């Protein structure tokens, strides 16, 4: 593929940050420009100016002792007036220059009274506040409050301040996400290494990521080769041992040995045959190449149970006499048969129940055996794991039984769960999604 030069991950993130900071600077500048240009409606400005001029005159004539009371009386719901002995020290972050000019035009006397106007900080309500100086250098502080016009001003300011920030955060997020996208693709691919749908990851993105992806692809290739070699080797064992084993069966037939010995050897060879069979089924993914078809799950299960009963086993079936579902008959039949076989082997009995739940069909295989230690529940689903490793190796097979079931059911879009029943024994449950039949 064509390799475009790349500025690297670091370069990209630096560029993104620079872009964001620049944009924010520009946006802020624009917003503060807007604030200083802020102007009230002419009417409002006129009224406020007139009122302030009157308040200034009244306060100026009132002796200092009575000023606080008069200030209270001057206050209305819309304008709060206070008197302070000192000089106004309010910080004036947001000067309302246009509004001030408007008001001074109406009432030039306010100029002499050193009118100061500013927007209150948001935490104090975001109203318009200000002060006038009285002749004795004390201060008349006013604050217009709860006025609809001022409210909308406040709201507008929040939006004006927050919107660019939100937009910038969004744009920044999108840009960083785009930069990291190849990494995410890689991350998803790592989860599939060695799986059925593992595929090489396309080399794209910043230089570092491209290197990473190239190395990852090489690693994945090695892993796939290893798995394939291992599978081939095991399959060859499973396949190639069958012919010599058949020869042994035939030779045993005409060998000059006593009957007990012959039976013992035949039994051992039968076990070897079973091992090979389970190995082949596990590796071959039996029945997975055939498409799903409609099958009668209830008849399938009861046929398996009938066969166990005919062999003199303690086996019961509890469920409908017919239940048609979609699936691969070979896989599902194998899965149920393996679970029944396990139950009979470890528990000595089996009760198979089929139930319909919302959107799912459940096949429960119960036994009255010892169950599985809680810490082994996960492990038993793995291939080549046997619970009785340390004890008598009386299990036929290679510990592939449950792994085969697990794979087969997953292939059907279902789930195999194992649980010890409170009343003792194990319950293996196959959950199959119910497709429209």
């Amino acid at each position, binding site marked *: 593929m064509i390799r475009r030069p790349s500025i690297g991950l670091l370069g990209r993130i630096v560029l993104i940050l620079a872009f964001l900071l620049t944009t924010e600077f520009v946006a802020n500048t624009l917003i503060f420009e807007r604030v200083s240009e802020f102007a009230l409606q002419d009417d409002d400005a006129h009224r406020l100016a007139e009122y302030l001029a009157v308040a200034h005159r009244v306060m100026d004539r009132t002796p200092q002792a009575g000023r606080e009371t008069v200030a209270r009386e001057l206050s209305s719901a819309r304008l709060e007036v206070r008197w302070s002995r000192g000089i106004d020290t309010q910080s004036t972050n947001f000067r309302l220059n246009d509004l001030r000019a408007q008001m001074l035009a109406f009432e030039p006397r306010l100029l002499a009274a050193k009118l100061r106007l500013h927007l209150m900080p948001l935490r104090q309500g975001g109203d318009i506040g200000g002060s006038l100086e009285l002749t004795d250098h004390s201060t008349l502080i006013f604050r217009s409050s709860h006025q609809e016009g001022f409210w909308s001003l406040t709201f507008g300011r929040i939006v004006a301040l927050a919107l660019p920030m939100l937009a910038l955060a969004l744009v920044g997020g999108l840009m960083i996400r785009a930069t990291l996208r190849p990494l995410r693709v890689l991350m998803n691919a790592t989860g599939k290494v060695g799986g059925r749908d593992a595929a090489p990851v396309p080399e794209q993105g910043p230089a570092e990521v491209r290197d990473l992806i190239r190395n990852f692809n090489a690693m994945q290739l090695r892993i796939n080769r290893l798995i394939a070699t291992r599978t081939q080797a095991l399959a060859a064992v499973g396949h190639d041992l069958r012919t010599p084993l058949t020869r042994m069966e*035939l030779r045993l037939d005409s060998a000059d040995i006593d009957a007990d010995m012959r039976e013992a050897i035949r039994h051992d060879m039968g076990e070897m045959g079973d091992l090979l069979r389970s190995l082949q089924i596990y590796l071959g993914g039996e029945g997975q190449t055939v498409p799903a078809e409609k099958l009668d799950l209830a008849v399938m299960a009861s*046929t398996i149970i009938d066969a166990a009963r005919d062999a003199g086993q303690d086996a019961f079936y509890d469920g409908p006499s017919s239940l048609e579902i979609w699936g691969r008959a070979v896989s599902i039949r194998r899965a149920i048969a393996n679970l029944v076989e396990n139950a009979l082997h470890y528990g000595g009995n089996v009760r198979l129940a089929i139930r319909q739940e919302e959107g799912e069909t459940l096949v429960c295989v119960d036994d009255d055996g010892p169950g599985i230690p809680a810490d082994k529940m996960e492990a038993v689903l793995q291939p080549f794991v046997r619970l009785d490793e340390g004890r008598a190796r009386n299990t036929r097979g290679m510990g592939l039984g449950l792994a085969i079931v697990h794979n087969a059911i997953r292939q059907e879009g279902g789930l195999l769960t194992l649980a010890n029943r409170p009343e003792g024994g194990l319950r293996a449950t196959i959950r199959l999604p119910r497709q429209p039949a």
Partner: protein
Amino acid sequence: MTAQTIILVEDDPGLRTLIARLLQENGFPVRTAATAPEMWIALENGPAASLIILDIMLPGTNGLDLCRQIRRTSDIPIIFISAKGGDEDRILGLELGADDFLAKPFQPRELVARARAILRRGPMTDHAAPKTRNEVQFDGWTVFFARRELRSPSGAVVDLTGAEFDLLGTFISQPQRVIGRERLIELSRTRLGDSSDRSIDVLVSRLRRKLTAAGAEPPIMTVRGVGYMFSAAVSPA
């Protein structure tokens, strides 16, 4: 009765010798072949063969292709032996017209028993004729003889044991006729590997239960004191 000649096609020399000896010891003259060309020679030379035992994995032409070629000209019974035990190979083999399928490793007496059964069955299948008709239908149900498969009226695969399938085959070959219980027992005994002592009545009731699945009355009626009757009309699919 003249000895029935068997042709054995197996590429492993040891196994070829051993199987040949086994069959000869059981009274069958054997001609062996290691490859497809050798088989055609073996087929043409000497007395007419009655059965071919065919390994699937052969150098060059494999057993499945060979089976296809044989079927173009001949109805000679074929038993597959295969190192692959998978159901897919078995089904494919049977669909290609093989008569039986045996996975390695097998027990010697099993091979002999199956060979005997097929040779015995040979002339019988002709007038009972389920094999020549590949598919039949009754009451919406379909029976595929080559795959030994039963499908419900809605098209679902309905599992049958070997004995149940054979019983169904017997019923289908004689529809709307009463079949005596003794006759059914006799037929079920001749089936291979059917060593369990379950009674024919259990077998019939299981088959009946499976045929009830569609909700309708099962087409197998009990004729008290005599036997059973398959009441549905059978038509080729």
